């Protein structure tokens, strides 16, 4: 059976979500929901590269999902190397995918 190639949200349908929380992802306004982590918002969008590594510019998404592996690094409100899987969304949060090591590119 061929997998669906439709674009669109990876959020599971039919689940009641919290209040809408507008955030910014790489400068664009995006609809998130109360109680979501930054990882959930980024992953749901289908763009799964959260950062690229310092040495080989390899794309990385997330690996352990529970705050242990430090693979899901993003820049939030100017602070670099935060774990997207642990950060809850807040209204107006500015999320940026980062190029490692992060601090040379955070603005």
């Amino acid at each position, binding site marked *: 059976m061929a997998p669906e190639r439709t674009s669109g949200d990876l959020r599971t349908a039919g*689940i009641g979500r919290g209040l809408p929380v507008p955030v910014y992802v790489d400068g664009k306004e995006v609809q998130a929901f*109360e109680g979501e982590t930054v990882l959930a918002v980024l992953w749901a969008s289908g763009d799964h590269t959260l950062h690229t590594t310092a040495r080989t510019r390899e794309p990385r*998404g997330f690996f352990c999902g529970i705050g242990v592996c430090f693979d899901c690094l993003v820049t939030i409100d100017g602070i670099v190397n935060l774990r997207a*899987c642990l950060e809850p969304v807040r209204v107006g949060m500015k999320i940026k995918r980062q190029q490692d090591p992060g601090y040379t590119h955070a603005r």
Partner: protein
Amino acid sequence: MSAAVAAAESGAHVIVLDEYAKPGGQFFKRTGDGFSVAPESLTREHARGEELRGKLNHPNITMLTRALVWGRFDDRVMVAHEGCSKSVYGKALVIATGAYDRPVAFPGWTLPGVLTAGGAQTLAKSQWVKPGRRMLLAGAGPFLLPVALSLLRADVSIAALVEATRPNEWLPHLGSLWGQWPRFSEAWEYKANLRRAGVPTLYGHKIVRALGEEKVEGAVIAKVDNEWRAIPGSERTIEVDAIAMGYGFLANIELAASSGCELRFDERARTWFVMCTPTMATNKPGIFVAGEITGIGGSALALEEGRIAGLSAAEFAGMLTARAADEQRGQPIWQRAHLDRFASALNVLFGPRPGLWEFLTDDMTVCRCEEVKAKEIAACIANGATTTKSIKDWTRAGMGLCEGRICRGMVGEILARDRDVALGSIPFPSVRPPIKPVPFSTLLQDDSQSESIAS
């Protein structure tokens, strides 16, 4: 949670420091605030988790969440909380830092979309986001079953569940699994769910490659022999957009280790745990442990150990007489022994086998944080390195943000293989605070308020 409740009910003042936003660890992880989910979609664990969390409202318990314990100095525990570093004093300390999925490298494993089974489950279960539209689940052991169910509930299509062991290998262990009927019926229920959803289970297979350029686009699986080595020529490609792998767990023993607690190497699990007595005491007076850090054993066992540890901590702090503590510990100690038998049997059956490490060669990325390849580590060993630490000093493997949690086990396997020594003979590297990265800005915001527990 169970340790806190046991200690609080014995009269002790308890401070609980939980790194996550809500207590409950991985097993009792709950959906984020704001979600409303139909009751049928919630598991029975959710109800038990909520019940335990309710008990944390005990007047003797102070709960700090998003509180990272980054070290311990003498009898003070250092906590990063709300941008400040605080020191917390307690007469006794219970460490229950849990476990994480064992990382196993294979070609393509750093691609976005290759996840751990636990990570896939967490995203699906607590955030209701699909890790992938069509997924492959690969690994060994019963944990894959509840993960599969969480994914199905989140409307993920599972192309296949790939289990490294074969059913005929389970038969010799049926004796040790006797008396564990609830576990069997649970497993049966999980499997029935998979059958209903039309998910094929392939025994005696494993993942050998993740395909894709910028993200996962497919998976290659292969048949394995009894040592989990891939059998050449048996490869098959499956179209998926995410791969979740579950090959058991490693314990978060760093806090205990850096506090001076003695560790023990488990031969079959091929990893280190914290040594403890039947009353959950460590070799350090006043430090007690519970849960997966004493041995991977599941939530029921962790709850019993927590109860024992909470009682022992309260006894140590003078809130319970030895007699009262012994009386109350009796039942959970017995339960623990019973549950431990099952955990040990699972360990023997589903523990890692040599073929799991067959990809740790050449250009395979071993240290994800610092992007160190297997060949760099091998060269270091060929030049005389004999410890994990010297490999870290030379190659930077283990020097990144995760502080070696992901690569340490595999670096050990490479060392054991290339030097032809037992894995257990390679000492667990010394752990120094901070046991997880803490921003300098947090350290500089020193909050000299210190709180005591146990009056």
